[in-house]
């Protein structure tokens, strides 16, 4: 609490803060087979098949209402698929408890969804302590290390309301990473941020991608998709319209719909 009063500049031991970058991630391989996701009687994602190789980044782009976010929520079964199969490291996960799948898949939300009555450190330590049943001290140690990686160790005692949107989103990323996921899902992670804070979060995500994390990123940041993605998926009306490496998709769109979408957003 008393840290609130100290100066925000990270004056103390700047050398120690560079260690976070050394983290390497063991990304898993994700595959969706003929997934259908429905709201009531209406399929919002239809017959979706997608392979995300271990350690690669797939960006999902598309107009609003295209089912991107629903697709993402289908991957960790926040939205239960109506049909189809989800494979993680070659094994179907639909018959397991959803919780055991979600232990292996981290998710970052547009609205951060941090726990408002917990400090940044407690936000990150909560799940390791109560879901992975680590001793409190160990969970906090991990949380501190993760916060360090996202450049927020000096703010570990702040509550979300005392952090900027960009900082909150970085805490949310640290919170997901603390569970050692094999896959990270990002649901328009920078859409709610002030423009000058967007790059910080995107850089962090690029760092994860570079460190070997498997990522599925729903985004409107075409620059990010172009530079970081190994594969770009263009969705519209609940279906995959085009899939391919970014340079192909962005330079030579094959469909009229993608051309129109790109001309609107670029």
């Amino acid at each position, binding site marked *: 609490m008393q840290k*609130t*009063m100290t100066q*925000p500049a*990270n004056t103390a031991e700047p050398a120690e*803060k*560079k260690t*976070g*970058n050394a983290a390497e991630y063991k990304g898993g391989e994700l595959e969706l087979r003929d997934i259908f996701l429905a709201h009531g009687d209406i399929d919002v994602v239809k017959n979706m098949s997608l392979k995300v190789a271990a350690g690669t*980044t797939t960006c999902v782009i598309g107009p609003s209402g295209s089912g991107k976010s629903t697709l993402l929520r289908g991957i960790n079964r*926040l939205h239960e698929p109506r049909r189809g199969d989800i494979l993680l490291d070659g094994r179907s996960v639909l018959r397991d408890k*959803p*919780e*055991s799948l*979600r*232990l292996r*898949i*981290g*998710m970052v*939300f547009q*609205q951060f*969804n*941090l*726990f*408002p*009555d917990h400090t940044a450190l407690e936000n990150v330590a*909560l*799940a390791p302590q*109560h*879901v992975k049943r680590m001793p409190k001290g160990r969970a906090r140690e991990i949380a501190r290390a993760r916060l360090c*990686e*996202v*450049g*927020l*160790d*000096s703010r570990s005692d702040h*509550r979300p*309301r*005392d952090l*900027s949107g*960009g*900082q909150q989103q970085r805490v949310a990323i640290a919170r*997901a990473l603390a*569970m050692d996921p094999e896959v990270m899902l990002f649901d328009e992670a920078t859409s709610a941020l002030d423009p*000058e*804070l967007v*790059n*910080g979060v*995107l*850089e*962090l995500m*690029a*760092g994860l*991608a*570079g460190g070997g994390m498997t990522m599925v990123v729903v985004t409107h940041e075409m*620059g*990010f998709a172009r*530079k*970081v*993605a*190994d594969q770009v998926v263009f969705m519209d009306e609940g279906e995959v319209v085009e899939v391919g490496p970014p340079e192909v998709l962005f330079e030579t769109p094959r469909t009229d719909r993608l051309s129109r979408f790109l001309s609107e957003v670029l």
Partner: protein
Amino acid sequence: MDNLELLRQTFLDGQAMLDVLPQLLGTGLKNTLIISIWATVIGTILGMILAIAGISRSWFIRGLARIYTDIFRGLPAIVTILLVGQGLARVSRDLFGASPYPLGIFALSLIASAYIGEIFRSGIQSVDKGQLEACKALGMSYPRAMALVVVPQGIRRVLPALVNQFISIIKDSSLVYFLGLLTAERELFRVGQDAAVNTGNLSPLVMAGIFYLIITVPLTHVVNHVDNKYRTGRRRPTAPRSGLDEVSELSSARDTTPAIRTSTGAQ
């Protein structure tokens, strides 16, 4: 002038008020607080169960909670107190002895739990859905997410409403006198009422009223204060900071990460 003096003697007879003071302090205040606090504690426990039942995914459990709430919120307190106090007297005698005191507390608890259950339920349901989603995404089960994150947030939000409920229990506790309390069990109202009857003067009852106000008025203001504090948040005023500071904060932490702007393609 005579009329004014008459009014003063009827309501504010200093001697009559002083005479009843020891009884109000020693017996009345003690019993009012005991009854109210017990009813609040039991009512809160029952209310929490009711709230959890009220948001259950089973329609049957939700329905039971709904019926319970409708009954005990819909009945006048005095009807519940008399029905419970007289109807369960035999059971109570075996458990607690002849005194109607425990039954009075029980009846007040039933009434309070219906209100407190609704307070908790609305608080829990007002918590943003994203909180539950974030918990689930971290691998928490529904019960654990509720217990660790959602319910505590909901409760914190309704603390002012709970204090209001406590105030209303304190006032309702006066109705327990209908069950016929022993001399040593009388609460504030009954002590004041007895003294008023004995002296033929209302001043002791006024004194009892003052005791109620001494408890309830400060509580009301505590509620308002707490409410305000939660509304404005615990945020301390800080000097405005440029968002650009934050950009450098991250880059100093990860200065070996290639920036997107300058990196070429996926690593």
